[in-house]
């Protein structure tokens, strides 16, 4: 445990590296917590599959971006240590065993509890094609012949045929092959791990085939025991691989997968057309430097050596997988029909507490600010806000920032409708939203075609803020309606991510929202802001000020307290300010889902700070910041985490909630999160996360409570609406 180095004369150096956790290692801790859900027996089986799949895709992204970035730094000779005092090499060295351990744990989870449990519950996953029954084998061979074979492109490598380019994250099967003898004798089908002495003596060639992404990875096959049986596509191909290399003998065949550096390197200053440049870079992403090689455990050594040489990976970057490669297929398994009893019941988002969906949305916003809590409450009001604006003849303009949208976004449809009906529509569509670039390019082009003014993002900055402005001409003049959110304008993820939104027609926020879009359109900043706080120019200073103000209160002997909820905390300046605040006596409760570089429990440094992480059925995503401020409490919502990227390299918006009723509601929400003892894990002094003790207390699952609360609110509201439905008879004038 780190201890504060304080002497009587010297102040504490809150920047000392030992007070910080490396962000990548903290990231892996988060993935471990997600994996913990996959290992939790109290969770329905199929939900556990989903969590395991999430850990796999998370880890893929971690390699493609974070590990890749560290490797880039190392290659560039960058040796500056991070806040925890680790230089890139040291970080890579620390990460390698941690990632290997994590992957081992993933497969231990898959192979041991999950696979047998699936079988017990009627879903048999045939792990190897050798285990197929004759009927199943026949089915599989026919499936190969009819469906798979036509889309395969086998490739052999020799002096005249160069090693093929391997697509990032694509699943492939590598084989060692050798030419059949001239007399045409065939030694019969050779399965993996089987070799003949004769074959070993012949010259060996490398061959491979990509497992086609266009076909489903999970193939349902006839069942032997009345339940459902499935096999993975790569097993079907492996079984039939000799049909791809007709004049060759296949010595062995094993699946493998490469992961490449997927960080886009765009010189935005030089790029004349950002859209074209990103399209070009996306193609390149498929061919970035290989940073990880997954191979089936027990892969033939000769084959492995050939592969290693061709893709140039170090031994530490090779992962020997004890099971099927790329566990993201489990998400597809989760979606298989017929296993509903092994999943949570579908959550139906409830009508919002603060509005009546049957009434005109603009009228309701005029009555007062509306807080929305997703996914407990439906995202429909947000869609309806844009849709109503598109249809309303008094609406002059709609302006919106978009970061990640759903595949068939109703919001985009509404924006297109608005533009086509002659309204002025401005959309900042962030093309650089990682891994959504392609989707965003398609939508941006569609919007442009419809006549929207599309801004593809800002040079050097990602626009991560979530804001919509509707300008409406009303009887008493122009009125601006604004939606501000903590999450994306994505109706699909709004059912899975916990986020907050505020609908308002406050003049002060309306003015600020206008100024935001002016800035995003390249115009100058305003002299001052009324309510909104923007990154990268003002937000960090504002947070430091707010934290510092609590510190001052504490130093003056007044009660001081901060509760902050976010996805990640790794900004050194903010952490330093929090340490100072803790040192002064500020009580700080942090609810951080993911990365946390702050350490708790260091005497004199962070002994007033607690950190908890909630990993539940919904992805915790909202950012809420509460400051006691001597009783004049202030609460903010926003799109930014306390990370350098959010505070320095992104356009983010944080906004205050000022209506007392809504403040109380948000405080209640935070208190539930702090009470959670089911899905929460508490950061310990040693850097581990531990579930809080329930001794003397009942189980409290904050997400579940929010679901129940939303249902109760909706019912209560429906009752009150019904009770006010009194018919009022029209009286005769005489009466």
């Amino acid at each position, binding site marked *: 445990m780190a201890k504060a180095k304080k002497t009587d004369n010297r102040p504490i150096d809150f920047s000392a590296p030992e007070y910080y956790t490396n962000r990548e290692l903290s990231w892996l801790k988060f993935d471990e917590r997600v994996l913990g859900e996959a290992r939790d027996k109290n969770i329905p089986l199929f939900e556990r599959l989903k969590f395991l799949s999430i850990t796999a895709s998370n880890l893929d992204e971690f390699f493609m971006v974070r590990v890749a970035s560290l490797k880039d730094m190392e290659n560039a000779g960058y040796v500056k240590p991070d806040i925890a005092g680790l230089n890139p090499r040291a970080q890579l060295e620390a990460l390698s065993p941690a990632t290997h351990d994590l992957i081992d744990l993933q497969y231990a989870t898959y192979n041991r509890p999950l696979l047998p449990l699936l079988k017990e519950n009627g879903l048999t996953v045939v792990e190897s094609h050798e285990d197929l029954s004759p009927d199943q084998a026949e089915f599989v061979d026919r499936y190969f012949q009819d469906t798979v074979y036509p889309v395969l492109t086998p490739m052999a490598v020799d002096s005249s045929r160069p090693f093929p380019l391997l697509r990032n994250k694509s699943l492939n099967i590598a084989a060692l092959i050798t030419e059949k003898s001239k007399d045409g004798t065939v030694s019969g089908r050779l399965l993996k791990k089987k070799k003949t002495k004769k074959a070993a003596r012949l010259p060996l060639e490398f061959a491979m085939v990509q497992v086609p992404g266009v076909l489903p990875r999970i193939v349902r096959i006839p069942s032997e025991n009345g339940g459902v049986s499935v096999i993975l596509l790569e097993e079907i191909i492996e079984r039939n691989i000799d049909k791809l290399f007709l004049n060759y003998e296949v010595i062995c065949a094993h699946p493998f997968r490469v992961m490449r550096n997927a960080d886009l390197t765009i010189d935005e200053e030089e790029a004349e057309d950002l859209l074209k440049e990103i399209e070009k870079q996306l193609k390149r992403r498929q061919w970035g430097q290989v940073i990880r090689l997954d191979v089936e455990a027990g892969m033939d050594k000769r084959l492995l050596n050939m592969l290693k040489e061709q893709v140039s990976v170090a031994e530490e970057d090779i992962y020997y997988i004890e099971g099927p490669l790329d566990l993201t297929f489990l998400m597809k398994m989760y979606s298989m029909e017929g296993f509903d009893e092994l999943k949570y019941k579908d959550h139906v988002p409830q009508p919002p507490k603060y509005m009546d969906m049957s009434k005109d949305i603009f009228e309701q916003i005029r009555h007062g600010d509306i807080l929305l809590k997703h996914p407990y409450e439906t995202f429909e009001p947000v869609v309806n806000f844009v849709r109503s604006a598109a249809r309303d003849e008094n609406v002059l303009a709609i*302006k919106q920032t978009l970061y990640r949208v759903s595949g068939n976004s109703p919001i985009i449809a509404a924006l297109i409708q608005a533009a086509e009906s002659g309204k002025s529509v401005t959309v900042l569509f962030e093309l650089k939203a990682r891994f959504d670039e392609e989707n965003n390019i398609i939508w941006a082009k569609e919007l442009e075609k419809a006549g929207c003014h599309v801004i593809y993002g800002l040079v050097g900055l990602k626009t991560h803020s979530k804001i919509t402005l509707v300008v409406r*001409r009303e009887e008493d*003049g*122009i009125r601006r309606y604004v939606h501000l959110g903590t999450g994306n304008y994505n109706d699909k993820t709004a059912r899975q991510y916990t986020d907050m939104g505020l609908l308002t027609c406050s003049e002060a926020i309306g003015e600020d929202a206008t*100024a935001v879009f002016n800035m995003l359109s*390249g115009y*100058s900043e305003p*002299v001052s802001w009324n309510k909104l706080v923007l990154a990268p120019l003002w937000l960090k200073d504002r947070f430091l000020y707010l934290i510092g103000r609590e510190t001052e209160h504490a130093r003056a002997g007044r009660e001081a307290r901060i509760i902050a909820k976010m996805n990640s905390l790794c900004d050194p300046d903010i952490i330093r300010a929090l340490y100072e605040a803790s040192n002064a006596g500020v009580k700080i409760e942090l609810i951080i889902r993911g990365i946390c570089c702050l350490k708790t429990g260091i005497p004199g440094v962070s002994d007033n700070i607690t950190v908890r992480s909630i990993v539940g059925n919904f992805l915790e995503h909202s950012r809420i910041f509460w400051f006691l401020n001597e009783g004049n409490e202030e609460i903010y919502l926003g799109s930014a985490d306390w990370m350098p990227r959010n505070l320095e390299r992104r356009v983010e918006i944080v906004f205050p909630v000022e209506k007392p009723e809504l403040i109380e509601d948000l405080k209640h929400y935070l208190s539930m999160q702090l009470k959670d003892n089911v899905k929460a894990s508490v950061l310990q002094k040693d850097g581990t996360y531990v579930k809080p003790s329930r001794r003397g207390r009942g189980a409290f699952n904050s997400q579940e409570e929010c679901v129940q609360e939303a249902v109760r609110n909706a019912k209560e509201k429906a009752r009150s609406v019904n009770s006010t439905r009194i018919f009022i008879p029209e009286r005769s004038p005489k009466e």
Partner: protein
Amino acid sequence: MKIFAAIDVGSYEVGMKIFQLSKKYGLKELDYIRHRVDLGSDSYRTGRISYDHMEELCSVLNGFNDIMSSYGVDDYRACGTSAIREAESTDIVLDQIRLRTGLDVRALSNSEQRFLDYKSVALQDVEKFENIIKDGTLFIDIGGGSTQVSLFQEGSLITTVNLPLGILRIRSQLSELEPRRSQYSELLSEIIDNELYSFKKLYLNNSDIKNMVVVDDYLPYVKQRLTDNGVLSSEMVTTRQYLDFCERIKQQSVEEVAKAVGIPQENANLLRPSAALIRNFINITGAQMLWITGATLSDGIAYDYAERTHIIKSAHDFDSDIIASAENIAARYRITDAREEALLQVSMVVFDSMKKFHGLSKRDRLLLELAARLRDVGRFVSLSVPAESSYSIIMGTEIIGLSHMERAMVASAAINSFSRDVYYRDFENEEFDKITSLRVVKITAILRLAAALAQNPGKRFKKVTASIRDNELDLTIGSKAGIVLESGDFAQYSQFFEEVYGIRPVIRHREVSAV
């Protein structure tokens, strides 16, 4: 309710404000959009606006068009200031803008521009403004090419002067000198002081200046920062607070100033000359309070539009400022005698009696009044060529609130009122269109008639009346002394009047005893 856009094509920035104008609520600012386009650096240095800046300007203006349509703007006014005005090819630039953006930009004269700035401040908070100018006040309007300084005393405008101290000019002067960081502040001060020396000598002797009202694009950021940091608790900044700020940034680099004030570096580069300019004004005046207004030309354009379209009625009497300014010019040239009074008296009475016949406006009445007040200022310079001298003085003196054209009209009326022989075709001025020429002729005809009667510096008219009857202007002069001399000239001068209006003036005298 009307949605109105006011566009300001400035020397270093193009700005647009969107307003909601209504009789009930007055002016409400909806949006303020600005973009840096450094037109001044071209225009002041080469007299031209470069291709790149023209491209950038048109692109920004097209963006403004989009924003205007997003508000359903009903009307707009776009004005260019010194960078456009001083370009050799102003007309070509404006034509290009029109062709490429569809926007009609009008180049404002310096006095028009300053008047609109002044209007924007005075109307922002009329009560406050009028309270401030009760004490000696300097109104300092900092521009890219020059700075306009107006002096108020006891609620009246005393004088207004244009100083060649624009922030772009100062910046370029400094950059030519390539000062070291340690020299920068001193050099900046020296450049400013050189210009302020004469100003002080001429206008500030014995003036007790308590307040300064500042119009500038970047100083409002300073005020905001002082407010954010808890230094300021009211709208007004004490000069002590301001000087403390100047002291802090004195030795700072542009980067440090930008960070301290929270503005982009490019703006910090322009803030420093502005800040120094105000500091030096404080030093020469000893002013105690500073009102950094935050008002912009766009505000002035909108107020002006709202007034002209009768959406608002100005609570401040700007005409009286213009008149006060003319009075002060006249006083400076020592022509405040009975003759000037008589000239003014007759001119106004004749104008008012002919409302139904002359077809002139209230504004023309003001121009006539100015012409009457300033007609004789040339006598101070030369008794042999007073007309030409008056013309030169009027054209060379800023009268805040008058456009360049209006000033030329006043000067033309003044010069042509001296001689009975100048026929109206001789009034032709390349700056005047036909309608303007006709207005000048009509104003001159009245002024010339009045001048025929107001010849004696010692003769006061007690009462002057006029009425129209049977195509005759019956003008009765009530005075103690007779008007024999005047009557003789009157017949000769009245021909021109008769020709212009088709009305014959007839003069009568009524003896009035001294009271």
